[in-house]
């Protein structure tokens, strides 16, 4: 009350000093205001002008640049990637933040946990992207993700001693020579004619890696003697520079294939015995009964197992078939986008957790307790009380993350490599590529920038409404 009385007397009484104070106050604002006008406000308006001109800003083109934007494949790819980011990232980061915030209320080491989760925010996105690029690396000697996947898959689907490299286009059939008495059966190799007890079977295989044999300490292939009541034989690596196509005879210097798994199959196709070759490639099925048998080199010998996922290569999830190429390209999701989103979650989950945690701390505990006393289970309290009461905070996190993701740049530039460079650009990356690589080109780059600006405007309006309301 007293303050307002003083104000009134001052305004009427000391008019000149009021003006002076007014000027000083404006002088306080002036440096920031001038700075913002010259480097933010005016350039933003100028970008709109530049988007209507050619790339050296000398000729007015009207909306031509905007037409170019919507008819250039790489820019359309950028739009698609921004859509993927916006659809996936804000949802997951909010969910992670919510889960972390709720769970940290139940542990004693919450401070340590929060510090750990928030830590990646202070790292540069460049450094984080480079770390995650190694984590997702193809090679199990570099990438932890593929190394872990390989370890797990080896329990179920271990590679054989003689893996066939399907990625290089090799098949099991390539191992069998045209003069061979064996043929490909499914993914195994099986004898073409039957054998009886006392027979001796020899099989030469082509295209076997010499390093495999060195590792397995293979010795010179030697034909075993036929034995009564048994089927014996030898498997060797048919590789002779003098007779490359000969897979029938063991030539000097050719090595046996150790540790190869064989099955004895009867005329009905049932496996009756199994064995493994010795270091010189020999094998023996003892006590073979009467009747005809086939010898099979089982498929597990040639299985390459799991060879890793090419996260940061050019591969995509393309769920739609029967569309034209452009439509298919626009609807596919590059795996590299997923890898980047995972890295980005690692960076930003802490941000979401801190905001939601603060919201949680300010919730009315009595409402939660009342729900519990009324017999609601923890999950019901969470689903029906906590989440609805938190929804304003969740919305803030969600919107902030949409704006963030619309501008996503550093991570794409640093994580994409090789063929994923063309699959993963976002609008921000395209603005940079079009505008700043090989000199400054303003036209198309400015048009994309204007579009990006329009995309963040709804968020801007939302912010304004929120603050005006307060």
């Amino acid at each position, binding site marked *: 009350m007293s303050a307002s009385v003083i104000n009134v007397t001052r305004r009427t009484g000391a008019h000149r000093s009021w003006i002076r104070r007014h000027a000083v106050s*404006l002088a*306080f604002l002036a440096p*920031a205001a001038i700075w913002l006008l010259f480097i933010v406000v005016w*350039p933003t308006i100028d970008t709109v002008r530049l988007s209507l001109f050619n790339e050296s800003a000398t000729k007015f083109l009207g909306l031509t640049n905007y037409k170019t934007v919507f008819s250039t494949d790489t820019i359309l790819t950028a739009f698609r990637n921004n859509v993927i980011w916006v659809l996936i990232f804000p949802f997951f980061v909010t969910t992670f933040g919510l889960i972390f915030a709720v769970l940290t209320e139940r542990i004693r080491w919450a401070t340590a946990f929060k510090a*750990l989760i928030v830590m990646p925010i202070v790292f540069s996105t460049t450094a984080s992207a*480079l770390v995650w690029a190694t984590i997702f690396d193809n090679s199990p000697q570099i990438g932890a993700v593929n190394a872990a996947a390989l370890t797990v898959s080896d329990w179920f689907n271990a590679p054989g001693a003689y893996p066939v490299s399907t990625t290089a286009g090799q098949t099991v059939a390539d191992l069998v020579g045209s003069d061979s008495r064996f043929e490909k059966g499914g993914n195994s190799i099986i004898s073409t004619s039957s054998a009886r007890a006392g027979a001796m079977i020899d099989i030469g295989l082509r295209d076997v890696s010499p390093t495999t044999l060195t590792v397995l300490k293979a010795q010179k292939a030697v034909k075993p003697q036929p034995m009564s009541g048994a089927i014996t034989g030898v498997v060797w690596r048919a590789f002779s520079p003098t007779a490359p196509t000969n897979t029938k005879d063991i030539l000097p210097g050719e090595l046996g294939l150790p540790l190869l798994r064989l099955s004895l199959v009867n005329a009905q196709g049932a496996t009756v015995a199994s064995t493994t070759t010795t270091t010189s490639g020999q094998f023996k099925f003892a006590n073979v009964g009467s009747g005809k048998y086939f010898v099979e080199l089982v498929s597990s010998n040639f299985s390459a197992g799991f060879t890793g996922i090419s996260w940061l290569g050019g591969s995509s999830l393309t769920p739609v078939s029967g569309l034209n190429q452009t439509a298919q390209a626009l609807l596919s999701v590059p795996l590299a986008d997923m890898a980047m989103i995972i890295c980005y979650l690692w960076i930003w989950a802490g941000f979401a957790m801190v905001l939601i945690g603060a919201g949680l701390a300010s919730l009315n505990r009595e409402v939660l307790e009342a729900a519990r006393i009324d017999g609601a289970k923890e999950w019901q309290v969470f689903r029906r009380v906590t989440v609805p009461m938190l929804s304003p905070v969740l919305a*803030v996190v969600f919107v902030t993350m949409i704006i963030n993701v619309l*501008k996503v740049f550093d991570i794409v530039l640093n994580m994409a490599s090789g063929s994923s460079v063309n699959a993963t650009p976002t609008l921000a990356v395209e603005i940079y590529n079009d505008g700043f690589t090989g000199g400054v080109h303003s036209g198309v780059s400015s048009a994309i920038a204007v579009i990006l*600006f329009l995309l963040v405007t709804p968020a801007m309006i939302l912010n304004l409404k929120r603050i*005006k309301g307060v």
Partner: protein
Amino acid sequence: MANIVETTDLTPRRRGLARRLGTRGPANIVLGLIAIVWLVPTVSLLVISLRPEADFGVSGWWKALLHPLSLTFSNYHVLFAQGFVAGGLLDSLITSLEITIPATLLVTFLACFAGHSLVFGRWRGRDIVFLVVVGLMVVPVQVALIPVVQFYRELGDLFGLNPYGTIPGVVIFHVAFGLPFGIFLMRNFMSGIPKDLLEAARMEGAGEWKVFYRIVLPLALPALASLAIFQFIWVWNDLLVALVFLGGNLHTPLTVFLYDQNHELQANYWIISTGAIVSVVVPLIVFFSFQRYFVRGVLAGAVK
């Protein structure tokens, strides 16, 4: 009587304890696993930077955890021994500091002044100016890049001082894009300062400047700290602005150093990992020293 009260009291307390034990166990396990997952990238970066160059790509970094004695500081030694050669790691570290420190100080103080004017000034239209500032908070950096590059060149033509390709050029840009958030933060914090305090000082004849640095500035210190930390980390970690204004320069900040190393034909991961650790150490020190202010800044930035 007392006895009865105690026994009736015990039941809910016991039930609460049982529930807590039942729900805390799983929470500890789940968060423990999450904590490990969250640590893996940082640990891997550290271990790779401490492994001999030849080991990268031959065996995974996790193998080194079994032989901790094989770790060495040789990568750091090699890069630091180069000294301050242009384009080297130490040179980039210095360049990062040369950009970040002035950009942080300028934003902090200009935002303080502007906040003071917006809260304690008496001129009309303060609210509109504030709303414009709030609007500017989400303007993407990309929207202003090309005109500012051209503006810098025009300055060069007119006055012979072209900030393009120089550290002041980067600083000027960063200050401009740090100001909206800075003003927002300061204005919101300062509106919590009781106006009576200022009125009393004015009654005693203190000028606006004195009121600012004797009353407002000391009271606004926590917000000042939040803003400075935020601005420091944001500028330190920027890649885009530095790439546009300093790309191809002799002296580049750490982010551009890492970017360039990664885009070499034969990327040297021992340099990248060592450089990344160096680039991360500075903001980590800032973060752990001023964690409280950092979190406060995060909260102020998104929720009013």
